[in-house]
């Protein structure tokens, strides 16, 4: 919680004024019983009508001033709470933007989204309530006690006993039931999970005729939920009656003490009435406070969750070199640099990669060089590490052993933004954003001219369908690109990477939704782009990489071979297996 407090700093004034005005309101409320007492003792006892009217006006004035203070307090607290949430949300969003892939993998994007939305909203409510009520309720409770002291010290002692007793009961019950509520939530989550599962897996469950056992399991979990709920219910149901007993027994004692004191002439009848009023004010506030505390614990839990996101920092340090500097400082700043590889676009120098929390090594001893202008194909089975290899180039992950160099400089030495600017990557999953096609393409390079966009569309074989869309480049892509087909989305993501005019273009299995002919045309067009651009094509189709300058065959995180199509087809067993599974032998022979 503490670390989140800084976001309310800019609202210091509001966060102090809000409770102050709330307490002002409370003070006026506390004066009411005294006024009433004087009406009884002076007005009624002396039959003084003008005094009664005067006091009546005082009551109305107190109410009016109370109203104004309350409204002021409400305003300040709304401003502070909303301002706090706004700052927090902005900071959290910013923080998430700064996390690296490793952290995103461990937290999961769904979690991040709930943290940003519902958790922050809960916190906003929590702050709002805290500012308004957290001080007010104890203030009234203790204020009532102090007022009681001004009326009569001995009678006030009853308050001194009652209040701690009440607090113990209220908080005791709450502390006892809190962990139980967590249990209820857990039980509910289980039920929810099973329901969702049964919907998604309806076919499989029915195919295996598991309906009966699913129902039985559900009923069992449901029964467990019921039992927990009833148990918790019994405990929290005790709260009201017990507080009721304590306050009212205190009232009985108060009346008796009052009677004795009045009899001996120490206090008046009106004073007794005032004391009784204070006692009932305490009861009302305590109930409010109990509700407030329930809300607050919820908000605190949210705060903890939000804090845990802030606690995760990017595991990736930024380098200092900008692209320009790297060329001139090459020799001095990079020790690891081998002369022969100076001109290579990409060098993998005995690279290993272990994902955090992932157990075994995912990449082992990857070692290859890509010259400027070369096209490299990477092929291999699912989970063989193809994507892991290309993810190291824009530094989405850091190699755990060895190093990756671009233009002869370790990627870790580049400023990350500089590094990624050189690289155009087309990820496996074709992701587009809500906005026009143009806006989406400009992600690649904000300064691209219209001609650049058109050219990129041509190369990515997307021009044809973009032209048929209403508005062409201004066609609005729906959220998640839902109004485009898979192939169209893929071609646009390729165009987006090309707009960047990168030194290195990475196509990570990004033509899977294209037919063979389009795929071939695409490759042809990419080849015709600027001559010193290196291209890396990751694919499961042998046809996509067949004509690359070099093909890397991945198997189980290792390089099983590297060479041209002919070399590999002649001597690499895995490559043969892949190739012939897609181009059955007799066909190839027939066509050859």
């Amino acid at each position, binding site marked *: 919680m503490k670390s989140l407090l800084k976001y309310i700093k800019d609202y210091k004034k509001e966060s102090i004024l809000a409770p102050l005005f709330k307490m002002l309101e409370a003070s006026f409320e506390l004066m009411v019983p005294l006024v009433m007492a004087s009406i009884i003792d002076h007005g009624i006892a002396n039959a003084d009508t003008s005094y009664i009217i005067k006091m009546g006006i005082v009551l109305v004035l107190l*109410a009016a001033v109370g109203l104004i203070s309350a409204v002021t307090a409400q305003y300040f607290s709304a401003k502070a709470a909303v301002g706090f949430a706004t700052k927090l949300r902005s900071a959290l969003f910013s923080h998430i933007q700064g996390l690296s892939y490793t952290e995103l993998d461990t937290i999961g994007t769904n979690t991040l989204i709930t943290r940003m*939305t519902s958790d922050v909203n809960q916190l906003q409510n929590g702050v709002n309530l805290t500012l308004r009520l957290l001080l007010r309720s104890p203030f009234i409770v203790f204020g009532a006690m102090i007022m009681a002291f001004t009326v009569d010290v001995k009678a006030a002692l009853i308050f001194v006993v009652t209040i701690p007793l009440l607090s113990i009961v209220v908080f005791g019950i709450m502390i006892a039931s809190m962990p139980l509520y967590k249990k209820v939530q857990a039980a509910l989550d289980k039920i929810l999970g099973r329901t969702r599962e049964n919907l998604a897996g309806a076919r499989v469950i029915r195919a295996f005729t598991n309906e009966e056992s699913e129902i039985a399991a559900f009923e069992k979990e449901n029964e467990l939920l019921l039992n927990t709920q009833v148990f918790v219910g*019994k405990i929290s149901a005790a709260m009201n009656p017990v507080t009721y007993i304590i306050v009212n027994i205190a009232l009985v004692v108060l009346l008796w003490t009052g*009677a004795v004191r009045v009899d001996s002439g120490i206090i008046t009848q009106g004073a007794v009435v005032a004391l009784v009023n204070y006692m009932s004010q305490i009861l009302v506030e305590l109930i409010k406070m109990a509700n407030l505390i329930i809300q607050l614990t919820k908000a605190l839990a949210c705060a903890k969750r939000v804090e845990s996101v802030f606690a995760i920092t990017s595991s990736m340090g930024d380098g200092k070199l900008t692209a320009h500097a790297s060329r001139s400082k090459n020799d001095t700043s990079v020790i690891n640099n081998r002369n022969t590889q100076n001109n290579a676009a990409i060098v993998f120098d005995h690279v290993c990669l272990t994902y955090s929390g992932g157990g075994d090594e995912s990449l082992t001893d990857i070692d290859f060089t890509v010259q400027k202008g070369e096209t490299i194909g990477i092929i291999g*089975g699912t989970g063989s590490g193809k994507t892991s290899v290309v993810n190291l180039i824009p530094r*989405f992950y850091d190699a755990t052993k060895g190093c990756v160099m671009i233009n002869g400089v370790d990627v870790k030495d580049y400023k990350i933004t500089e590094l990624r600017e050189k690289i155009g990557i087309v990820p496996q999953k074709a992701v587009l954003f809500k906005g026009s096609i143009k806006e989406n393409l400009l992600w690649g390079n904000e300064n691209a001219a219209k001609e650049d966009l058109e050219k990129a569309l041509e190369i990515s074989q997307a021009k044809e369908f973009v032209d048929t869309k209403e508005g062409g480049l201004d066609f609005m892509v729906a959220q998640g690109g839902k109004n485009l087909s898979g192939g169209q989305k893929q071609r646009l993501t390729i165009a987006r990477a090309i707009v960047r005019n990168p030194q290195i273009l990475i196509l990570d299995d990004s033509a899977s939704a294209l037919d063979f002919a389009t795929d071939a045309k695409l490759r042809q067009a990419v080849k015709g782009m600027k001559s010193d651009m290196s291209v890396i094509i990751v694919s499961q189709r042998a046809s996509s990489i067949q004509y690359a300058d070099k093909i890397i065959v991945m198997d189980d995180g290792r390089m099983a071979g590297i060479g041209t199509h002919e070399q590999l087809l002649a001597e690499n067993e895995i490559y043969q297996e*892949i190739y012939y599974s897609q181009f059955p032998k007799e066909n190839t022979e027939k066509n050859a």
Partner: protein
Amino acid sequence: MKNQNKGILKKVLNYIGKYKFFLLCSIVLAAISVILTLYIPILTGRAVDCIVGAGAVDFDGILRILKQMTIIILLTAAAQWLMNACNNKIAYQVVRDVRDEAFKKLEILPLKYIDGHSHGDIVSRIIADVDQFSDGLLMGFTQLFTGVVTIVGTLLFMLSINVTTTIVVVILTPLSFFIAGFIAKRTFNMSKVQSETRGEQTALIDEMIGNEKVVKAFNHEDAVREQFDEINLRLEKASVKAIFFSSLTNPCTRFVNSLVYAGVGILGAFLAIRGRISVGQLTSFLSYANQYTKPFNEISGVVTELQTALACAGRIFEFIEEESQVPDAENAAVLTNPKGTITMENVSFSYNPEQKLIRNFNLEVQSGQRVAIVGPTGCGKTTVINLLMRFYDVNSGSIKIDGTDIRDMTRKSLRDSFGMVLQDTWLHAGTIRENIVMGKPDATDEEVIAAAKAAHSHSFIKRLPKGYDTVITEDGGSLSQGQKQLLCITRVMLCLPPMLILDEATSSIDTRTEIRISKAFNTMMKGRTSFIVAHRLSTIREADIILVMKDGNIIEQGNHETLLKKENGFYANLYASQFTA
């Protein structure tokens, strides 16, 4: 609308009816506790009247009153506690009953319903709506009930003391409703703006954080940040307005309450001077004045809550009352160890009446034959699976296994006779082992491992952190698509029924894993009647019957040779374009 609500209410009462005893107790206890609570101020007033001044205290009287008070306090507390316990019992048990019922329904709904409705929506009906309905309805009921009893009781008690003062209270109270209503109307638009802006922000968060990796790949963090902050500031403005104005209700109604209090104080004092009421009675009045308006404020809230609750109840009942699948016939046959001859006679089927899919389709499959289903993606290959497994029923014609119409046998025995592996893999949240034994819950470890070995999944399972006891999440978590599919194959391998339905993998799986999978498939298919949604040329060519589907229709059938000979046939063209380029 009214009638509909009435209908829902009736159904709710049906569910509650089971707990009549608790309900009756709850109502009686509520009445008792309210009336006793209201009696306390009167006793307090009487006690105050015994304390007139120095030397004028009626100790005997006061002692008697205090004794009464103590007893009443204890009784009230007991009544309150029991009432709460009863309410909890009713509420939670009704929730359990409704949920059980809904879940049972879920298992017998036709797949058509599950396919055609948003899963999120169904889940929220069973979980959130049920909760809200029980909270709103049962708590609302008791609140409404105690509220009304409180109001009536207070009125009666007040009238019994003094009529004039009572009238002042009754006249001034509606003011607070008026103010609350006024504020609510004014703030409605502000809340709307607030929730719209919030929606916009959530959409952006969803989109950007959901695709954070792409954002990073394009160095787009700062641009996205700017976009976010712009919406965030708008949200701030809208929220401050909405929250501030709607929070005015409380202080305003409290102000009205204070006015009532002052009014009662002044009037009561005048009356007291004239001796029409005692000081004690004035005290009782003042505490009533404090209490009287509260139930009104609560009730106005309760009414909206009840309406939402009814709406929620309506949604859940709508689900429970959906038409179930046609139940098994009473004398339904039990299919045991079928040979696996399958005949489809004049089968017609469509998902919706306007769009005919399969018309007068005939097919004869001998025991042990392989049927390959081919066609472009989205051509409706799953339709055949849907019909064979009886996930959907044919519109006309019949499907027979070993000569018996599948509608004349139990669904259980039919489905037990088929082993099914879908490309769209589905896993349970639970351990790997639990996922494998779905079809054979009592399988031994040896059997499980043997099946895993046969399905080529043993080697990767072994490498998982806890092997077969590794817990996986609903979506398979860290498993790759290929691994998930191998698990699903293992599941079928373990029980190996006489007939198979297999969906071959396409793009999401690499060719080498695919080879492994198809090896596993081949082991399984030996001697079994099998239907394969086929993508690989070898599978297709080895099939005894090839069904070519297009746009949901079966347009050609035959074997590889006969179909190739067909001049300009769809299959012939497909083959030429896909496999000979």
